[in-house]
């Protein structure tokens, strides 16, 4: 549980990555970084495809990448901001994350990209942004970036 000394996960603590074919497919796939046993389960309860496995409310969620359709129901509700939708399309990487800061993001905005430790790792462009009022003010935003960055980038800020 070294991650609790730091506040971020290192490579060897991350959940297994989705298979490459799944990442390269038409729909994004949910990648959940929620390793600790906490009494929380809205992601599990929101998934109509039973793609999230959880024995009981304290069990950390595990995604069955074969079953995940990329519907984004889970990422809308996660109070831990711990779910990221990943996809690679035509050689470019896409990460969808929850965003709750002003100014709200809009399609076309350039953003700074940050990794789990809060270090700036590059720049990206917003390709899709759910209006905040559509999801009780938690925006969902998709950011286009270098494809190698999709396992790194976990936060963005407007330039």
């Amino acid at each position, binding site marked *: 549980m070294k991650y609790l000394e730091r506040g971020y996960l290192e490579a060897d603590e991350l959940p297994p990555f989705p298979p490459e074919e799944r990442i390269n497919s038409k729909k994004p796939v949910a990648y959940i970084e929620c390793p600790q046993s906490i009494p929380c389960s809205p992601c599990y309860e929101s998934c109509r495809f039973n793609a999230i496995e959880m024995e009981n*409310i304290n069990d950390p969620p595990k995604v069955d990448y074969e079953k995940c359709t990329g519907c984004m129901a889970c990422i809308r509700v996660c109070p831990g901001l711990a779910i990221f939708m990943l996809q690679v399309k035509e050689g470019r990487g896409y990460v969808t994350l929850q965003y709750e800061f002003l100014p709200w993001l809009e399609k076309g905005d350039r953003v700074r990209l940050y990794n789990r430790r809060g270090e700036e790792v590059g720049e990206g462009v917003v390709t899709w942004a759910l209006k905040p009022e559509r999801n009780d003010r938690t925006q969902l935003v998709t950011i286009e970036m270098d494809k190698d960055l999709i396992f790194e980038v976990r936060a963005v800020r407007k330039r």
Partner: protein
Amino acid sequence: MRLESHPIVDFERGKEVTIYFNGKPIKAYEGETVAAALYAAGVRVFSRSFRFHRPRGFFCAIGKCSQCMMEVDGVPNIRTCKVYVRDGMQIRTQNSKPDAENDALAIFDKIIDTVFPHGSHYKKFNKSRKVREFATKQMRKLAGFGNPPKSIPDIETSYEEIETDVAIIGGGPAGLSAAIHAAKYGAKVVLMDENNYLGGQLIKQTHRFFGSARHRAGTRGIRIAQILEEELRQYENVDIRKETKVFGIYGKDVAAVQKDSKLLRVKAKKIVIATGAYERTLIFENNDLPGVYGAGGVQTLMNVYGIKPGNKGLIVGSGNVGLILTYQLMQAGVDVAAIVEAMPRIGGYFVHAAKVRRLGVPIYTRHTIVKAFGEKKVEGAVIAQLDDRWQVIPGSEKEIECDFICVAVGLSPAHELLYHVNAQMKFVPELGGLVPLRTRYNETSVDGVYVAGDVAGIEEATAAIMEGRIAGIHAAITLGYGGDEAKKELEEAVKDLEDFRAGPFGERIVCGLEKCVLEKEVMI
């Protein structure tokens, strides 16, 4: 310093009014507390300590620490964080001349301090009783508790007696839930809360909650407060009294003051105490400087009144409260310099820590705050690393640039009313302090008196809601309401709560609860 926009909250400000602070006009908005309005206007020194005349700011913002006491419209010792502004209101600082900001008496303290170093008055005047009594009296005078009111306040007063099945004290998640579930089965309920809103701590929790979807996880705390209130308002057998402070319980009679002018006597068959908790403080050099605030105090200021607490904060404590507060500060456009945590690891949920970590906030585990510095308010802090024996490692001190410090080191149950009924109490560290013994249905050692929520042990809103449900249903059943249906729901509620506490985060709570099980005949 007032926030005009915020990602989550729309601040609806009332009509503009003018209040007078030591004679100086200040703009405020109806619905704001005096303390919030003063803070927004840049006032940081609210009072002076009796010894040393040290400047004091607000701390808790929920009426429980006394740091914000001032004279309001001629009435001394008013907790300004609990009274709302009115046009033309006159507010004066106490215990200082000419005012708290520029206290002339402070210079004498420096001299007094050399003659009577800190704590010496405990030893100095103990030789003879006469001397001690005389000295104590003089010291009391010096302490200054404002001036006695000069005239009888010009207000109309009244008295009301209410008979009810269940009296509920506290309108936080626990009290609301108890009221809903007792009313649902037909019991007559009176719910009292000292605030002018219901929801307790929830009204400043702008983040989405944990738990199961069935218990509204993924929903923001502020919305949960609204949902519970709407649910409660469906029942006609509930009498809601806001701005009503309960000051005593005499047998089964609950005594309260409504809107400062009406005395209430609520004759109840059952009582649910759901008074929540106090914020704890921490010992370090200069921890009394204005700018050292309780986490909840900052949350109230920022999320309820839309007032920025400062530009850059230091957070002490990495429990969920500290982590969430950090995120909320950033949402309000306030920088957070760092989070310090004395334990070797982060106390709250990892996901909350990850949220702020990736936005660049450093979290220093095995670190503590050594001191705050500044003249009249916080201008910075020093933190240092701790060794395995919790001692500061010399040379590890680091200066942190900040203009306020949030102490988020936990809460203690607000248990005063439990002593009025003479409930059996026990000190249980896992539950945050002194808590009452209780049955599995949350009844205390006093027949018909229940507890629910933080007052029964510091936990979470979800647990508070479940405890309120249990207490409310049990109270209704024992009064003959509800029948088998109620009994079934009661068992379900007990089971739900057990499941909720089954994980590692619940272990501590369960361990604490085992120490205060009351083995009395439980009737359902």
